[in-house]
């Protein structure tokens, strides 16, 4: 108890002396604000991407691609193969008794991005009525849906936000044919909101693709997945990859999160090291400026452990202040900020930065860690200084 009382008294003394050395103190505060702000922002980008892709899909849906394809763009089935897949065990039936399966065509269209006015790839999906039935989350929020047989399209909320010329009534030139935007859809903020949807039959005709890129099926229930997968992967007529839809979209974010993870690690380590040296410098200066004070306190009987604890705590308090500023800044500037990037299918996937409570806590823990390291060695020096020698520094 006495130790704590002494330590808090010393921390209070140390912190009271901060105004006398604002410049040095700002180094540690600003340094940590920068580190935590940047690392949290980078992590929130990754978190946003992951959340968007993980929100896409449902456990009771499965996606079938041609064997060896890592995305829908590189996959293709004939209509006959699609019929075989639809008949596999585990596929749910609709009210009309037909399998709930949606053969879909995935293509790329070029549109200029709003943020840069440069062309980028927007994902265009050909989809039939079953596609809407299987995805109840897909809702028209403005205008109406496309009519089969007409070159009409509907755009996702995020696609309209990211690309120029996708407002209702706009005419869009895609691969030599003119399409009219007739509606806008929402899809719980998932990856499909970055897409443009058209009628599958019209797309097959317009883009001369007599087949499908993928087949999405609704399963009787999630547990039916393994039987469904086994049935298709053992069928000699097919060479397919079968994935749970949630797993499929999660895997799409893997390389992105890995890249961001590496970036966060590299930037975090470099900036963190910089902040540690800044904190060390600040705290060494603080200890040097208080040599006589510390020696006096030691002479009065304050123990070395108390001096170490108080100096480390001082550094941690200052680092925490910096960390809080960085975390609050990252939240204020980046949380909800929407950007788009190339997804696994070379198309733009829009997502919002997510500065989650976990990321904020991680940032604060990082700042405390840096503060601890930055304070420990100067504290050790303070505690080890020879009192008689240090008193002569007066």
């Amino acid at each position, binding site marked *: 108890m*006495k130790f704590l*009382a*002494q330590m808090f*008294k010393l921390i209070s*003394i140390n912190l*009271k*002396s901060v105004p*006398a050395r604002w410049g040095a103190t700002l180094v540690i505060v600003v340094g940590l604000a920068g580190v935590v702000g940047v690392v949290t922002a980078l992590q929130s980008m990754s978190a946003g991407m992951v959340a968007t892709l993980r929100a896409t899909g449902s456990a009771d849906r499965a996606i079938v691609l041609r064997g060896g394809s890592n995305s829908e763009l590189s996959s293709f089935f004939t209509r006959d193969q699609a019929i075989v897949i639809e008949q596999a065990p585990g596929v749910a039936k609709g009210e009309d008794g037909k399998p709930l399966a949606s053969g879909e065509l995935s293509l790329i269209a070029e549109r200029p991005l709003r943020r840069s006015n440069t062309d980028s790839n927007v994902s265009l999906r050909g989809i039939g009525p079953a596609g809407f039935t299987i995805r109840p989350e897909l809702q028209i929020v403005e205008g109406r849906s496309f009519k089969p047989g007409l070159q009409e399209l509907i755009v996702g909320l995020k696609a309209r936000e990211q690309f120029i010329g996708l407002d209702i009534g706009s005419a869009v030139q895609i691969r030599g044919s003119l399409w009219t935007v007739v509606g806008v859809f929402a899809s719980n903020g998932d990856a499909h909101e970055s897409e443009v949807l058209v009628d599958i039959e019209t797309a097959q005709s317009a883009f001369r693709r007599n087949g499908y890129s993928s087949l999405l099926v609704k399963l009787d229930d999630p547990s039916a997945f393994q039987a469904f997968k086994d049935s298709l992967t053992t069928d000699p007529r097919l060479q397919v990859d079968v994935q749970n839809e949630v797993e499929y979209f999660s895997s799409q974010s893997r390389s992105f999160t890995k890249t961001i993870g590496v970036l966060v690690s590299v930037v975090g380590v470099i900036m963190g090291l910089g902040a540690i040296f800044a904190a060390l410098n600040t705290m060494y200066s603080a200890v040097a400026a208080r040599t*006589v*004070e510390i020696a*006096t*306190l*030691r*002479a*009065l*009987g*304050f*123990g*070395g452990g108390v001096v170490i604890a108080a100096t480390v705590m001082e550094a941690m308090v200052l680092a925490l202040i910096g960390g809080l500023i960085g975390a609050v800044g990252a939240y204020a500037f980046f949380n909800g900020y929407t950007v788009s990037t190339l997804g696994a299918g070379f198309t733009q996937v829009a997502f919002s930065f997510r500065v989650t409570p976990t990321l904020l806590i991680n940032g604060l823990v990082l700042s405390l860690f840096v503060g601890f390291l930055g304070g420990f060695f100067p504290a050790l020096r303070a505690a080890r200084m*020879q*009192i*008689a020698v240090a*008193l002569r520094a*007066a």
Partner: protein
Amino acid sequence: MTTLVSIRGVAKRYTRGKQTVDVLQALDLDIASGDFLALMGPSGSGKTTLLNLIGGLDKPSAGEIVVDGKRIDQLSSGQLAKWRARHVGFVFQFYNLLPVLSAEANVELPLLLTSLSKAQRKKNVAAALAVVGLADRATHKPSELSGGQQQRVAIARALVADPTLLVCDEPTGDLDRKTADEILTLLQQLNRNHGKTIVMVTHDAKAAEYATHRLDMDKGALVTSGDSH
């Protein structure tokens, strides 16, 4: 009078690189309880080193130091810190007050190392400030006090835990003559009226006159001793 400080065969040696400097050599000294001893001598004579050894701020290279029946040369750093807190009050030339704390908070510092309650600490601080005549300056910070007042606060800090021994290193070295005399008178009163044993290092022969005994040192050894007045 009983012996409070007993020093036998004490030597202090510093090593800097390959060079060894003998600051104190086989020194013997007894200080009686209730004494007011002035240590004098030229710079480098070893008087401050001796004072630091008596106050437990440093350890001898050889020899034995007993204070109030306790052998302090064998204590660890931690034990020595606890011993200092209980038995020694320090008065420094430049006061060594913490600038961010008020006079009363500075005086309270040694009491934080005791088990006294906050109320008791407050009472003791007030009493110590009253003894040095600064009861009305309790809330002032060091920068708001004169040099003499700051040294009085430092003396109050040295007294507040009722130590066995007061060690003063050039307590008037930074003060003008008049203020120095006031401080020395205060130390004399503490010795005479409160029975405090005081060991004071000084360059000032006039300051030494306030002590009951005076010891002169040169080249790490005691050269003369006698009554100051």
